[in-house]
């Protein structure tokens, strides 16, 4: 009985973790869907967004290290702090600016190139952003507190204790992540289905050439999609950064999104969510049941094994578009 209760707790926590993975995977899906680009820089965008958010909140002078080294000044902070909500809005603005720059300086010059070239460009972008974030805001680990609660949910613990005699652990941050992810996905789906820009985005996703022929601006759509992906990266950065502090490792959360994408498909928003949930639950349950027999630390590799198993049966992923090529 105890094992069943423990397994249930692990299952629920797996779902919650899966939501956190989905948040990262969503950014990849948006860009891939609209432009066919696998954005290697998505993880670094989350890092850059979170660094910028903390920097704005703390009133940190950007490029202070560089300025101090060049001019012998001692700049550090402006002396003010910015409320979290305003800082999030300002950071979203920075991510839009970044999207515009990416479109103008990188993507525009690569229109019509092979997807692998665009992919390589995003690798370059990832390293550039990593360095830019470092130079702008410094390499220290930064505490991020936008007011999201953390720690065990007493309500859940007491309720489950009264029902089963064992209080379940659920992190309040995970509950908030679930709520925010649900809102985000609803907003994204509504945007894609019911707005003119959303329909244009879907048209571009379906066929670039056809979309261009009916007057849709590819340039605008790309900026829009990269901006939205930047905002999604900001949300992912907030969630993961709240947990571990904002630091370079945040960019590595992209690795957690890859099996989610393989499983859910690169072109489906629901796929990113369902894929995340399956990976989250799968890796946690495997670690719970099998981990102790094989020395533990199975989660990283098992997520990929799980994704590969799905790939064998559905190469396009669970919700991906089936590619049919007629000769």
């Amino acid at each position, binding site marked *: 009985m105890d094992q069943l209760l*423990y397994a249930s*707790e*692990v299952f629920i*926590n797996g779902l*919650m*973790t899966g939501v*956190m993975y989905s948040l990262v995977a969503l950014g990849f899906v948006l860009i891939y869907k609209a432009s066919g680009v696998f954005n290697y820089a998505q993880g670094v965008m989350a890092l850059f967004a979170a660094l910028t958010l903390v920097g704005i909140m703390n009133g940190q002078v950007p490029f202070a*290290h560089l300025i*101090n*080294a060049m001019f*012998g000044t*001692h700049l*550090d902070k402006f002396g003010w702090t910015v409320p979290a909500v305003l800082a999030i809005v300002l950071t979203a603005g920075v991510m839009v600016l970044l999207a515009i720059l990416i479109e103008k300086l990188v993507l525009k010059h690569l229109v019509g190139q092979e997807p692998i070239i665009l992919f390589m460009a995003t690798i370059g972008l990832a390293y550039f952003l*990593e*360095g830019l974030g*470092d130079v702008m805001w410094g*390499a*220290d*680990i930064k*505490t*991020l*507190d936008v007011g999201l609660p*953390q*720690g*065990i949910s007493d309500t859940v613990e007491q309720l489950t204790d009264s029902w089963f005699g064992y209080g379940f*652990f659920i*992190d309040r941050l995970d509950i908030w992540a679930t709520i925010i992810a649900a809102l985000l996905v609803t907003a994204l789906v509504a945007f894609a289905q019911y707005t003119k820009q959303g329909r244009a985005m879907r048209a571009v996703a379906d066929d670039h050439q056809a979309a261009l022929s009916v007057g849709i601006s590819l340039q605008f759509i790309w900026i829009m999609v990269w901006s939205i992906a930047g905002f999604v990266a900001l949300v992912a950065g907030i969630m*993961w950064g709240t*947990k*571990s*502090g904002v*630091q*370079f*490792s*945040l960019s*590595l*959360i992209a690795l*957690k999104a890859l099996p989610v994408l393989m499983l859910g498909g690169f072109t489906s928003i629901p796929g990113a969510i369902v894929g995340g949930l399956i990976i989250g639950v799968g*890796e*946690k349950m495997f*670690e*719970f049941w099998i*981990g102790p027999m094989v*020395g*533990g*630390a199975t*989660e*990283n590799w098992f997520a990929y094994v799980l994704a590969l198993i799905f790939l064998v049966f559905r190469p396009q992923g669970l919700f991906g578009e089936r590619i049919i090529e007629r000769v």
Partner: protein
Amino acid sequence: MKLKFASLVAGAVMAAAPAMADLIVPNLSYRTGPYGANGTQYADGFNDYFTLLNERDGGIGGEKIQVPECETAYNTEKGVECYEATKEGALVFNPLSTGITYQLIPKVSVDKKVLYTPGYGRTSAKDGAVFEWVFNAPANYWDGASVAIKYLLDQNGGDLNGKKVALVYHNSAYGKEPIRTLQELGKKHGFTLTEIPVEAPGQEQKSQWLQIRRDKPDYVLMWGWGVMNQVAIQEAANIRFPMENFIGIWWAGSELDVLPAGDGANGYKSLTFNGVGMDYPLYDDLKTHVIDPGKASQGGEHVGSAVYSRGMYAAVVIAEAIRKAQELSGTSAISPEQLRDGFEQLDITPERLVEIGLPDFGPEIKLSCANHGGSGMARLQQWDAAAKKWNLITEFTEPDAEVLAPLIAEDAAAYTAENNITPRACD
């Protein structure tokens, strides 16, 4: 114009290349990558102490110290590249990475360079008969494990029978280092050990901490590095694990590790073999000669932090070994062989630490041909979240030599067998 250009080029070349008579101590640092936040602070402390010696004393024994820095990004291949790039004329290396250390151990034996790995690297390098060129004083991972268990014994009236200890560790050569020691100590003192690996980098540890919540160990020890530490401390706070029963190795004991968890980290403990904070006379000199004139590494923003202090302490030990080597050889421009001899005759007494301006900053270090690891003494510090500072809570404590000595002998013997080495005579 041409002459001016040529002299500029010559000047630049001369500035870039260390003068041949200088003492060259490369700093294989990492300021980028997942571990860059820690690496930066360590490198700053290491650089600043040598800058202080150059600025205040004109170097050591009249020789200036050059500290060429090379970025390893905590990557083993890059670390080896950095070693190759900086080894010309270099005396000693301190790469701050167990992975890089393992790769450099055979190389330094061939190149005859000193490898100094305080608190990390290969534990059995303590055996100087086998590892002629490697030093790991004042303490190694096995010392750390033993000192932590000694502390728990103190807390439990000398009896750990029936207690449950969980080890949360970075699933790497580094993280696995204390397992054997803790198993042996478990047999000796009657506690059960649960090993809980965390896959690098350690951003997600829900499974591990759910397991700890279910198993309810009395104590959790942690061998972590980088983001693993911050997440573990946050998760421990999330499940309301009593922080005073959570002890990290010294690499899980920096401000960077505890600050993100805020008040939740209050009471967390870690091992350390160096002092923390700025309440030492040396910092007055550092301020006068390095920080105020704007010569501090990275502007001096990390001065006094736990990892900065450790980097500075590594530089202190190297500087003292250089001093001893100069004294033994009667020359100021020493060779790596002479530095090795200096290390082997090193005797940093409490009185000497007072002279340096760091009273009680580290344990006494007395090395020999056979003993490259010192006494292995370490102490504990505890985090005060309100004051945002570490407080030292124990004196330096010796590890359990009865358990450790055979383990070191066994591991050193395995190394000699694998590498077909004949240990030198150290009598």
